[in-house]
């Protein structure tokens, strides 16, 4: 379904969606982040890249899996806690972040379908926004099979045509959203369609950064596991978790029991994001640490994204949003690391 919506009618549309929880990028000081909005008037789609991607909504950093308790008879009770099935809409999803969810879909949707992830994923409608201009100077989506107007993972893609949005719906969930305010949407004219194509074509030209010959990288990395390359590249790494926590595709998690009462025992089993850059990541109970230093941890991040994931799922586990580059405290640049790896020893 393809429709156009006057820009000034956007809040009216959002008002019609009162049965949904609405998320939209909000400015918080010097940065943008997704927040639940209570007032449709404050929706603002003229935003830069959010610090955290919509991953934080679909796969939250903390999630209770089940509660446990013992009664007086020492009987253990376990109660599964699944997320509430409340429909939600996320506005202003960048096409790269939408694509990121198609990658986490693969991870949480294999032989075991993770119910926590899918409850949220299925009840959330993603309304994307074409990047007419790149929202970050480190955008490089074109180098990792993405595009500033990609529809992957999205239910609706809106494109800013100046005084109106061109809305393309690709799914049933998307159609429902457009149908919820039929009077506000018009059919696109021939000129709208022409404008859309023009903006989409131009949006690609504005992406400044790129990885050259990305396709050569996975095979190259395969032979670099034991290379001293990682020692050199990680020299300035400070072992923080910014790159992976801000990454829309990183999905490693940890599970812990949080005990709130020791007698009688009561508590929750909690899943939280984990981080391959931390010293306790996949630490073995024997005391052995398979990634004992920062070189092996940087290697893990790169190989997971550009070798292991490609072998498993035929996709790069990177969507080119540039968050890890922009926010690295010491300027480690994944594009540079990959290009150096590609050319290493040749």
């Amino acid at each position, binding site marked *: 379904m393809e429709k156009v919506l006057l820009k000034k009618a956007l809040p009216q549309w959002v008002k019609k969606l009162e049965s949904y929880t609405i998320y939209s990028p909000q400015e918080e000081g010097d940065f943008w982040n997704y927040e639940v909005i209570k007032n449709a008037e404050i929706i603002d789609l003229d935003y830069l890249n959010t610090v955290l991607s919509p991953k934080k909504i679909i796969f939250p950093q903390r999630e209770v899996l089940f509660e446990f308790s013992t009664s007086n008879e020492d009987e253990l009770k376990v109660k599964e806690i699944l997320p509430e099935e409340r429909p939600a809409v996320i506005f202003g999803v960048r096409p790269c972040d939408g694509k990121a969810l198609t990658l986490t879909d693969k991870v949480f949707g294999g032989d075991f379908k993770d119910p926590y992830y899918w409850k949220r994923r299925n009840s959330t409608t993603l309304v994307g926004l074409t990047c007419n201009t790149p929202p970050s100077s480190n955008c490089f989506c074109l180098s990792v099979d993405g595009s500033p107007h990609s529809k992957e993972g999205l239910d609706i893609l809106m494109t800013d045509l100046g005084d109106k949005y061109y809305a393309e719906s690709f799914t049933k969930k998307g159609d429902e959203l457009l149908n919820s305010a039929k009077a506000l949407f018009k059919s696109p004219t021939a000129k709208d369609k022409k404008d859309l194509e023009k903006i989409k074509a131009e949006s690609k030209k504005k992406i400044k950064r790129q990885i050259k010959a990305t396709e050569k990288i996975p095979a190259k990395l395969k032979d670099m596991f034991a290379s001293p390359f990682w020692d050199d590249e990680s020299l300035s790494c400070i072992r923080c978790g910014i790159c992976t926590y801000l990454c829309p595709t990183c999905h490693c998690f940890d599970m812990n029991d949080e005990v709130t009462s020791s007698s009688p025992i009561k508590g929750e089993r909690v899943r939280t994001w984990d981080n391959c850059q931390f010293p306790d990541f996949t630490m073995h109970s024997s005391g052995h640490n398979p990634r004992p230093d920062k070189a092996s941890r940087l290697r893990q991040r790169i190989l997971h994204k550009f070798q292991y994931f490609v072998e498993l799922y035929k996709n790069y586990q990177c969507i080119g949003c540039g968050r890890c580059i922009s926010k690295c*405290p010491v300027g480690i640049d994944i594009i*540079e690391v990959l290009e150096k790896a590609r050319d290493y020893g040749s």
Partner: protein
Amino acid sequence: MVNLEELKKEASQILKEGKVKYIIGLQSSSNGLLPVPAFIKNPEDVEKLVWNPACVYNLTLFLRDEKRRKAKEKEPDEKPVGIIVKGCDSRAINVLLQEEFIKRDDVYILGISCENTGVLDEKKLAKKLKGKKAEKVEFGEKDDFVITTEDGKIKIAAQEVLSERCLECKAHFPVIYDVLIGEKTKRNIENPFKSLERIESLPPEERWKFWKEQIDKCIRCYACRSVCPMCYCDECVVDTISFVVTPDTPAEEKAQKIKWLEKSPVSSENFVYHFVRAIHLTGRCIDCGECERVCPLDIPIRFLNKKLEKEAKELFDYEAGFDPDQPSLVSSFKDEDPEDFIR
């Protein structure tokens, strides 16, 4: 004005003479305004060194890596490491010496004076430039910065775009060094704790609200800890790695393992993390401000440390990092120390 050529000359000389193993400095980045750390071994590579207002880093944090690397080597090279420091960073060296984390012979200090300026706050500059991208930033002749944008060069008074920490700086030239580049200019900072007033003036409930909002944003990436030269513990309370569990470990032993905080990024746990860090830095933080710069969620972490710095100054007349031989704040007492808190 600091002469970059002088820095390169000194650096090249100590490498040629074999005085140092390598030099920790900064080189320009292929992307972005801030330079990136450089570890220079060959004298010809000193040409890569840069010094400009975007040199925000406190490089002394890399002494931690050097120490770990050395501990692993069977026959470590005992030569010092050359390190480029600003005034604030040099205070960090003094604290590391005071705590005997390093020895004086471990470092050859190339000190650089900030003279009448300091380092850039990228966010302040971005606001000034209103969307224009700064390609280069250099020190100007008159306590100003020269910014190159696509439209050419503009001059901005340093005061307008300096980091908050520089506006409250107590050591604008190195307090310990082997070579000093630049001048020991005079500078008068009226109130080094001025920025704190904004929060101190709030009534307790509002102050609590302010901090709760800030701390709730934390995603526990630990960048503030990781970038801090004082956070050199082999094992941090936030990631327990030494408690080994084997199939034979009895349940009682596991139960007795102290869990200081949960991984969950919720208020209570985030507060524990930030308070533990702040208290561990009391009398040690030298206000390089790096924790605040690197925070991806812009939590004003520096205020926590600054407040404790102020308490130490007012209650115990203690300042960190000016004297490597002074007893540390938390391990010493004087008869005249205030004791009103004992009731």
